[in-house]
């Protein structure tokens, strides 16, 4: 079992997310004495009777003054079973931008709802974004359960409604877990609560410690392995007496595994060769897998440089200069058809034109709008792109690491959008029907 879990949190403003994250840090004893002292002091200064645990995670001065969180923050905690990297994504403004960022590396997401309000529109939007980004597992933390008198019926109703929604988004039932918690009082966060005797499931931390996780690029949703993908980052040529003819291709295995003797193809050139050696500073490897930084040596002296992709010869991605993609638009300036941008895919950056805006996901009505005039901040839509040169592409739903790209502003260098090859939720257009059906479930 993996000893590291990358997770993201998402929730609406005032759902108590900062308090929940603070509670996780506090109860796992990940908060050190001086930090805790500062929180006690600041809480007392504000006239609070008990320490405000949200102060543990609200970092920047502007958000402490406003009492809200404004950007993705990363938290680290560990138990004897696992280490956790938590991307804490705020929910109020620019929520898609933050949720997309946190979700892009997450193996699990914790969504918060207020037990008094249940599943609200923003919960459904967050879940849709998490599904789009391919976060494999969801936890719904039904928070403030103390404020509904630890009522089992209320929890069961919310859990059922959420499961129906998640199922409509493509999640299997075992990938979704609902837990009744009170972040403020600590119920079912780390320790099992005596106030919810009717709840027989794990506490939040127990679930995080035991849930199965897979390294990105290891396996598809159906459990089958992924073919080998290796974006070349850098060519290592020592040119020293000891390593006169050494020519290694450095990179991080994006998907699948590789062994010496494997037949590979270099894209976009299409040249073929055989892996002769997998090198690292700690010695040669007999196999390398997704997530490992290694250096490959090949049998043939062929022209390979940064930006090329090495793939297994008999299961290579399509090389194309036209693609359909889903964009999560993250910039203040809007996207209009005809826009000239840069696309960074793997280690290659190419010029591109957005030839068409096909549709936009209407989050208010959870439906889609055909041929929108523009895509605005925090909107998600499907587009057609033409690239200045052909690039090897996988579908995002097939391979997260080689099916994703950045859209970059060529003039100021800012990141404009998160790009997903294909339509990971083809239901974006048909989503409305399924969601209406899901919502219709009592």
């Amino acid at each position, binding site marked *: 079992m*993996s*000893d*590291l879990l990358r997770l993201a949190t998402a929730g609406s403003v005032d759902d108590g997310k900062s308090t929940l994250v603070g509670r996780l840090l506090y109860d796992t004893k990940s908060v*050190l*004495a*001086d*930090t805790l002292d*500062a929180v006690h002091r*600041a809480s007392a200064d504000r006239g609070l009777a008990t320490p405000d645990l949200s102060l543990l*995670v609200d*970092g*920047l*001065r502007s958000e*402490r003054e406003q009492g809200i969180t404004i*950007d993705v*923050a*990363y*938290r*680290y905690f*560990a138990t004897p079973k696992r*280490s956790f*990297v938590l991307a804490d994504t705020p929910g109020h403004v620019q929520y898609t931008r*933050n949720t*997309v*960022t946190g979700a*892009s*590396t997450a193996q699990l997401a914790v969504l918060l709802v207020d037990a008094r309000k249940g599943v609200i529109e923003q919960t459904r939007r967050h879940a849709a974004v998490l599904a789009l980004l391919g976060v494999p597992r969801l936890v719904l933390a039904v928070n403030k359960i103390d404020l509904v008198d630890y009522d089992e019926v209320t929890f069961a109703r919310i859990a059922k409604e959420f499961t129906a929604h998640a199922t409509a988004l493509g999640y299997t039932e075992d990938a979704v877990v609902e837990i009744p918690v009170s972040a403020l009082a600590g119920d079912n966060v780390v320790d099992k609560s005596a106030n919810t005797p009717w709840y027989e499931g794990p506490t939040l931390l127990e679930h995080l410690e035991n849930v199965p996780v897979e*390294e990105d690029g290891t396996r598809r949703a159906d459990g089958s392995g992924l073919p080998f993908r290796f974006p070349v*980052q*850098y060519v*290592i040529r*020592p*040119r*020293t007496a000891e*390593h006169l003819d*050494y020519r290694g291709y*450095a990179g*991080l295995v994006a998907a699948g595994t590789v062994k010496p003797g494997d037949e590979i193809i270099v894209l976009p050139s299409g040249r073929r060769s055989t892996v002769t050696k997998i*090198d*690292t*500073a*700690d010695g040669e490897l*007999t*196999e390398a*897998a997704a*997530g*490992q*930084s290694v250096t490959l040596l090949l049998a043939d002296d062929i022209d390979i440089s940064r930006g090329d992709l090495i793939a297994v010869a008999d299961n290579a991605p399509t090389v194309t200069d036209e693609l359909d993609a889903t964009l999560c638009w*993250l910039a203040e300036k809007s996207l209009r058809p005809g826009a000239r941008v840069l696309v*960074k895919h*793997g*280690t290659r950056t190419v010029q591109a034109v957005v030839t068409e805006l096909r549709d936009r996901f209407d989050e208010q009505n959870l439906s889609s709008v055909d041929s929108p005039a523009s895509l605005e901040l925090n909107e998600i839509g499907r587009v057609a792109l033409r690239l200045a040169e052909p690039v090897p592409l996988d579908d995002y739903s097939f391979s997260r*690491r080689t099916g*994703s*790209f950045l859209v*970059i502003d060529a003039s100021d*260098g*800012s*990141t404009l959008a*998160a790009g997903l090859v294909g339509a990971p939720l083809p239901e974006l257009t048909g989503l409305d029907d399924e969601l209406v059906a899901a919502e219709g479930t009592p």
Partner: protein
Amino acid sequence: MTLALDTLGRLESEAIHIFREVAGEFDRPVILFSGGKDSTLLLHLAIKAFYPAPVPFPLLHVDTGHNFDEVIEFRDRVVAQHGLRLEVAKVQDWIDDGRLEERPDGTRNPLQTVPLLDSITQHKFDAVFGGGRRDEERARAKERIFSLRTAFGQWDPKRQRPELWNLYNGRHRAGEHVRVFPLSNWTELDVWNYIEREGIELPDIYYSHQRDVFLRDGMWLAEGPWGTVRDGEALQRKTVRYRTVGDGSCTGAVESDAADIHAVIAEVAASRLTERGATRADDRLSEAAMEDRKREGYF
């Protein structure tokens, strides 16, 4: 050969990936190197990233002049051992020619910012590796791995880019640069566990030793070129070690018997103080101290 990476293996792999991205996309990267533990770890990872070729970057040390001798000796030895190029920007030079003024409290940590930015401009460095970690302090929890700095070296929260997947966007305008933090996702305990696993040598002062120190603001400070005891303070012989190494005027020792790496790990695992809270006077100034210094161009 191992197929499943453990936590340290993942962190190492991520850091190596970051070093190689910078080598592939920037013209003039530099590694900030003081001889302290985080920068020594950074250099170790850089060496592994480009093996068997040499590290394709020079090193830069912004030298406050308030150094521990053991650390400078270690710094120079490591540089020579690996055949590296080291640039040193001495705060003293900036004070001598009037570009900087000594502070009333004698602390030189805040004075590092100007020599750092001047050196970046002078050498046209476009990527600057630092050993910052997000677990160190709350203002760093939101820091990006690639952190864009303006032509004035400033960190503008509004211009920081969302970081998606492991795709880093290092584009910048002429005169701007990017600070790169390969250790972003490491915790203090990860750092020590990795140092043990890799057998990385550190300056001796990270391990317990006898030293004459005096108590000021709850910290054990040592005598040095930065000053000595004031009225009411007295030197005492203590068994101490350092958890961080910076400007001697504001870096405190902690009482410790941890004489080797195993003892240090046990101590860090059990410690109830963050390493900055325990040993850095400059971070105690205000709740928002780090945020303010970061905006000014400090790390």
